[in-house]
């Protein structure tokens, strides 16, 4: 039984990771692997859609911390969208909204990426 899944797709030249299920110390390596794969392929504009993410612990939060600096160094970003209040509360408790762009949906995130790209 797999309690965590990641689906990947492109949305207007931005890479989207859709998370589903429970992100804890057991499943965090899967997210780490997915993000590492994107960085290896020099994909730095990343949206993580959390619509179906039911749970996150500090092990999951730690994965975002591990990659954000590297991604931003390459002028990209990890933007988080569609969080349920339960998951948002955990981010909020740790002050993560100060560091991460947490947005309502993917459209808003894509717009932010476009605004940040010089014409």
């Amino acid at each position: 039984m797999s309690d965590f899944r990641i689906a990947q797709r492109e949305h207007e030249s931005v890479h989207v990771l859709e998370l589903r299920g429970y992100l804890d110390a057991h499943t965090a390596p899967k997210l780490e692997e997915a993000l590492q794969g994107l960085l290896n392929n020099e994909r730095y504009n990343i949206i993580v859609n959390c619509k179906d993410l039911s749970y996150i612990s500090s092990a999951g939060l730690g994965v975002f911390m591990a990659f954000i600096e590297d991604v931003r160094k390459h002028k990209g970003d990890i933007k988080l969208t569609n969080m349920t209040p339960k998951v948002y509360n955990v981010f909020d408790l740790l002050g993560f909204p100060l560091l991460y762009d947490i947005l309502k949906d993917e459209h808003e995130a894509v717009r932010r990426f476009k605004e940040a790209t010089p014409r």
Partner: protein
Amino acid sequence: MQQQKLHIESRTDRLIAVREFVSVAARRFGFAEEDVSKIALAVDEACTNIIKHAYKFDPTKSITVIVGSRNGAFEILIQDTGKEFDPAMIQTPDMKEYLAHYRRGGLGVYLMKSLMDKVEYKITPGQKNEVRLTKFLPR
């Protein structure tokens, strides 16, 4: 509330069972869903720390989780026989500084303290480590 006990192997794939066990007990104790989630997360963090630090991912070791009530509060006692530590050495990160320097790890302790009313450690060298998490029902 009658005391209940769960033994798990020291493996991260067992965390889901711990969260379920604690959630059922917290709900029965009278907590609303928001607090049930907080308690389950705090216990997950405590067990994750044991698996990683006390047992260093040795799956042959075990963790005991006991739920019950004391003086009207909901209490979870988590026991292991792994590497002992000095609770005074556990540092709660300064989140402002933490985020500014993209640190990683150490968030579990901060979460446990934020989510619960009390977090207490009792170390019996050479025998067992205990962490006691307490939460009161909202008035």
